């Protein structure tokens, strides 16, 4: 897939994320749009994961710690062929398996997540199992910057360094906002790079909405032999929709009909200008 095709994918994913949030009348809009490019690059360029190999013990593992941004994950998984996209019309509806957080009842989901600070410990155990069995698969987990204060993340960060898990890659979707306010004003975790480094990780910072930068970072894994890697991905919450970008109210806002039409227009325009 070319860079241009990937960029088009990102726009298409954003359109669908908004579509299904609108149908469900619920969802974590801003965060799903901030991590769209990360999921796009992971599933289309990096992960050895597909519907055909999902039961293989040798597949790569992706665990979404920021589970609330499930709309982005479900849209990408549908695109990968794990389930028919029209299933997402039932998102958050009575008796649907497509709930507001990742669940293994949905094909392609590795772990049930949603409570924050859980992805990294599970990913650490998974990467450790790969080392024990001398398997080559890699383990990726996507975290939000808002969940950085969860202590369990740092417990796992210590263990991952202790066990030299260079088959583990954490990505922090650093969009700078959480439900209450700017992340730095709620519980400042900056300088984040220094913290990860101090915990024994190799760190790279990228523009997390730039697919080329993301590809370059993933291509250079592990950043240092014998160390787990973390990509601090600087992103824009609400990316791609002008009135949603960097606006707190779109953390889990659902657009009105007019807002929805405007968002789709903007994304269509971006697609035509690629």
């Amino acid at each position: 897939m070319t860079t241009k095709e990937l960029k088009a994918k990102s726009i298409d994913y954003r359109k669908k994320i908004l579509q299904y949030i609108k149908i469900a009348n619920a969802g974590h809009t801003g965060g799903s749009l901030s991590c769209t490019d990360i999921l796009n690059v992971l599933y289309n360029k990096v992960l050895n994961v597909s519907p055909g190999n999902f039961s293989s013990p040798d597949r790569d593992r992706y665990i979404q710690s920021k589970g609330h941004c499930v709309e982005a994950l479900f849209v990408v998984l549908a695109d990968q062929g794990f389930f028919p996209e029209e299933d997402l019309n039932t998102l958050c509806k009575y008796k649907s398996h497509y709930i507001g957080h990742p669940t293994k009842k949905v094909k392609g989901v590795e772990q049930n997540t949603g409570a924050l600070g859980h992805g990294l410990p599970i990913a650490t155990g998974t990467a450790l199992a790969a080392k024990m069995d001398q398997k080559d698969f890699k383990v990726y987990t996507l975290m939000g910057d808002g969940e950085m204060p969860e202590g369990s993340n740092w417990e796992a960060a210590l263990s991952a360094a202790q066990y030299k898990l260079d088959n583990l890659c954490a990505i922090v979707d650093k969009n700078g906002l959480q439900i209450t306010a700017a992340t730095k004003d709620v519980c400042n975790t900056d300088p984040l790079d220094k913290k990860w480094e101090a915990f024994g990780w190799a760190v790279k910072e990228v523009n997390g909405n730039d697919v080329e930068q993301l590809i370059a970072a993933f291509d250079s894994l592990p950043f240092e032999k014998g160390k787990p890697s973390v990509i601090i991905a600087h992103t824009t919450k609400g990316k791609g929709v002008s009135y949603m970008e960097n606006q707190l109210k779109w953390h889990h806002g659902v657009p009105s009909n007019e807002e929805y039409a405007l968002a789709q227009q903007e994304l269509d325009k971006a697609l035509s200008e690629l």
Partner: protein
Amino acid sequence: MAEQINTNSYKPNLEIFSATLQRLAVTDKNIIAVTSDSRGSGKLVPFGQKFPDQMVEVGIAEQNLVGVAAGLASCGKKVFAVSPACFLTARALEQIKNDVAYSDNPVNVIGISAGVSYGALGSTHHSLHDYAALRAVNNIIVVAPADNFETEKAIELAAATNHPVYLRFGKKPMPPLKEVNDDVFAFGKGRIICEGDDVAIIATGEAVYPALEAARKLQAQNIQTTVVSMHTIKPLDTALLESLAKKCKAIVTVEEHSVYGGLGEACASFLMQNNYHNKFKIIGIPDEYTVTGSQTEIMDHYGISEKGIADAVIELLK
């Protein structure tokens, strides 16, 4: 020299846990013990020495202990996550609920030094909430083996079970409940230790042995007692419970746990909802600032003892 039988020859269930795990690990490289600086209290030092590649140490970090265990289990490892029950089932409850039970990662969560095993170390180190907390978590089997036999069988079963299990162990040497263990041990099936028609004492974990002692004492007063080791608190053996309710005038439950939310209330709930109205008594730790003392002193204080249980039965049958 003839071997003398005395209480010193009894082994703590935890030693049997460790020995069983070592036996299984010889032929199964997927057996993994995960500890949080708890290998000593978990009697796992020899396991770590013999199987260093099957031992994972996370340091004092219980949430990570359970999360790491879940990740290992998701890759086919038969994981035993070992930590004091007080920390494991409180601090890491969310990891047990989500990463183990909800995600159905088949971790064996091993709560050691449970109940009031830590005695005078006090409430921070007591686990009187674990049955209650885990009974309310979907998709985890809750087991408290009473003696060495039950421990060995429970560990073998846990290793072979592809779903989450919580196993609770105390620290003190436990005498055998039966001279000959000729019965089948299965999760969800209570063990009948002795039979009588006047009263059924349903106990779990280290509270079963004092229940058996009480039954012997009551026998001398011509009170015929059934004693059940209800090692599995969830799923509860309701068929056995129903047969006891039909057979016995009174039912007493005994547990080293809060009287709230544990074995006793599980039994009471089933009985009431199925129209059994036997005389009924729950013996456990009341909802109060627990008295200071050794495990035995604390259990004696709250009547989890030969005398306390026997007195409760006599009072109930009046």
